[in-house]
């Protein structure tokens, strides 16, 4: 059951992205930035958490989910550490993802070669 909820939630967020690509001048790079920032803001406003509770990975895997992790980390860290938490909380919470991106990204880029498109 939670697979279906993840599927629907994730699919729905992607459809919003598709509409932006086809109907506006949004390039993929701008979509990535807009969605992450939206995730941060919606989490701060308390709107994204319910979506995560419902959709699980369907809300955390799309890029707003990265923003969700950032915002949640920041708020928790501010609660515990005060002002310093505003600077440390986000990166602390997403450290795993960022490090994975750097490491796996570098390895894949170093080991593989790009191919001509068909």
């Amino acid at each position, binding site marked *: 059951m939670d697979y279906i909820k993840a599927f629907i939630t994730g699919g729905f967020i*992607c459809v919003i992205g598709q509409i932006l690509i086809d109907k506006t001048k949004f390039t993929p790079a701008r979509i990535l930035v807009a969605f992450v920032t939206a995730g941060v803001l919606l989490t701060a406003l308390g709107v994204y958490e319910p979506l995560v509770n419902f959709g699980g990975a369907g809300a955390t895997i799309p890029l707003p989910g990265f923003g969700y992790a950032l915002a949640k980390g920041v708020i928790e860290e501010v609660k515990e550490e005060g002002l310093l938490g505003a600077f440390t909380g986000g990166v602390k919470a997403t450290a795993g993802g960022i490090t994975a*991106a750097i490491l796996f990204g570098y390895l894949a880029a170093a080991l593989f070669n790009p191919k001509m498109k068909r």
Partner: protein
Amino acid sequence: MNPRQQKKNKQYQDYVKHKSPASNLLKNSICAFLVGGGICAVGQLIVNVGMTYYDLDKEKAYIVSAMVMIFLGSLLTGLGVYDDLGKIGGAGSIVPITGFANSIVSPAMEAKREGYIFGVGAKLFSIAGPVLVYGISSSVVVGLVYYFFVK
């Protein structure tokens, strides 16, 4: 530029916009829904496996699933498969975190010919960099607002 030429230009731009063939939004949206939903379902599988077999709590399971999806996105990009998925899935392959990994590996991979430091190393974040910049910066803003106004 004189006003008459400006008017001619505007007429031409409007005509081009009106006449340009549009993408098939319905077909693209359905494909985005299916591909994006599918990727997220795989992510959910990893979350469940993490919680059931590795006794991870929910938060850690989400972190691990994001890391595994980044690994998969990087691998599929390296194997030359992710761009084919993107052709079909559109936003369904750009929006999930696998798309973030794809945007990291793809520019770095082809910059290999320029060396491992200034080629691969420097180009890793040429497309994905803004995501970190704006994501982390906006989280700092949220933290400051929370500290000064909510706490």
